[in-house]
């Protein structure tokens, strides 16, 4: 049995130009490619193009639910202190948000925190600022997870696996970006997106970003200030306890002296630009503390 593995075909044109090779009878090809190649292939196939002979589509999803297992392989939980055990679920959520379900990125983030203890044993060490950062972004992840279907405009389970990953990664990356920026233009939030978020934009990405901002507004994480949405004073305090978005080198920036304007007016503007916004049932925007983010974490 001869197996030909062609790893890391990054471009659809390269893949399609190998069609004559793939047509070899009785052969075995394992072709490894990024999602954009798979998406292009699917789109063209559905449009009736037969660029390639039949392939079995094996899409590897991001690891959204298996990351705790990955952490447990590396962390000796039975030997952990009560403080560490209490932080573990938050660390899992934090790493899920920061790695966006990519296991190698999760391992990389953990590796950056490895230190040698006094007895020569390796450990993951987080100082108080790092713990504060973990707690803040863990709460942010929980908030986003709770409102996932509403933000995406349709149940996640109804989407294809590749679309699910794209949407989830997009939401997490945008949320992380704008929290780290500390502000976002309310009329054109897309202009504030980072390179990564721009690269994984799903369909209806503008509507998704608008709904995401509504969620952040209603949770009290962001408040309107002129033509911008900025981190609320409470959220600024929370973020300020941390140092940086761990492992990313991003240091959150904050607008000075926020001017709170009419939230309802801003809401109307954003809702008008968002097609079919979902009904969100959360606390109204106001000076009250962000309840969801303050809610104690489930163990």
């Amino acid at each position, binding site marked *: 049995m001869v197996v030909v593995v062609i790893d890391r075909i990054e471009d659809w044109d390269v893949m399609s130009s190998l069609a004559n090779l793939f047509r070899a009878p009785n052969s075995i090809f394992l072709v*490894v490619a990024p999602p954009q190649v798979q998406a292009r292939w699917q789109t063209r196939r559905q449009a009736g193009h037969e660029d390639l002979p039949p392939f079995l589509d094996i899409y590897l999803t991001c690891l959204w639910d298996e990351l705790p297992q990955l952490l447990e392989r590396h962390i000796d939980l039975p030997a952990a202190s009560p403080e560490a055990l209490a932080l573990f679920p938050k660390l899992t959520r934090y790493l899920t948000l920061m790695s966006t379900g990519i296991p190698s990125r999760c391992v990389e983030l953990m590796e950056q925190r*490895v230190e040698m203890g006094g007895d020569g044993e390796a450990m993951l060490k987080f100082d108080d600022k790092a713990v504060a950062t973990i707690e803040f972004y863990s709460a942010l992840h929980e908030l986003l997870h709770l409102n996932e279907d509403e933000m995406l405009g349709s149940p996640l389970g109804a989407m294809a696996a590749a679309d699910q990953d794209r949407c989830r990664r997009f939401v997490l990356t945008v949320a992380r970006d704008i929290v780290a920026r500390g502000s976002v233009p309310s009329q054109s939030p897309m202009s504030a997106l980072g390179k990564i978020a721009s690269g994984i934009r799903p369909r209806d990405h503008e509507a998704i970003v608008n709904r995401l901002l509504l969620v952040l507004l209603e949770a009290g994480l962001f408040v309107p200030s002129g033509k911008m949405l900025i981190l609320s004073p409470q959220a600024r305090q929370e973020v300020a306890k941390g140092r940086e978005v761990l492992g990313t080198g991003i240091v959150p920036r904050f607008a000075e002296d926020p001017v709170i304007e009419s939230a309802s007016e801003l809401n109307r503007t954003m809702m008008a630009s968002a097609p079919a916004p979902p009904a969100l049932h959360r606390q109204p925007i106001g000076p009250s503390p962000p309840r969801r983010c303050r809610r104690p974490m489930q163990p």
Partner: protein
Amino acid sequence: MSKGGVSFPLTDIPFNLEPLDGADPDALLGRDGPRQRVINYLLEHGTGRFLISGYSGVGKTSLVRRILYELQALLAKPDERGRKTDLVVIELRAQALAGAEVISKRLLWHLKWMVEASELDLSKSHHTRLLEAYQGVATSAVEETVGSKRSLNPTIGINVPLKLELGAQESVEKTRKAVYLPYDIQSTLLELGQLISSITAVPRLSRVPLLRRLFTGSPARTPPWSWW
């Protein structure tokens, strides 16, 4: 929160940022479904094309290696007639190799090497077929370009650097000329496909040393040509 922060003791499992080698059955998380799907399909049909996709770092290469590892173990077991099936893996890294033209040349190199390798346990008829296919794809182009003034086979046009035989100054020009020689890549790919099919039809393909070398993804000896 304690004043000194929080520490997590670690197990002795090292952090690994490289793709897994496939040997550890438990190392690959959450991929049982795709792994089993590919293996079952291959065992049932003996052939197949698979597009394995996913975001960078999600474990695509690790999955492929695990599949090959398991496949090797399964094929190594004798069937009811006591026969074993050999597994030969040709692994190409397309990202480093750029376009289809280079991929085809790299593949050609692997196949050429396989044909030349004495470990191949081929019947005479298969060996003849392989040699014919190989000669149609490679031999004439390589030998004619390097060794003589005869024109290059226009179907193949492999870019053999002539500096092997010429002076340094002259070699640059000659090599550049070779790069622009006609190269009908689609014909080459068709022939390569036929060659792979021929090799696949060989009942007992290789001995272990060949398998090991191919399994590492790189030929046993480095190709002499600079553009690999």
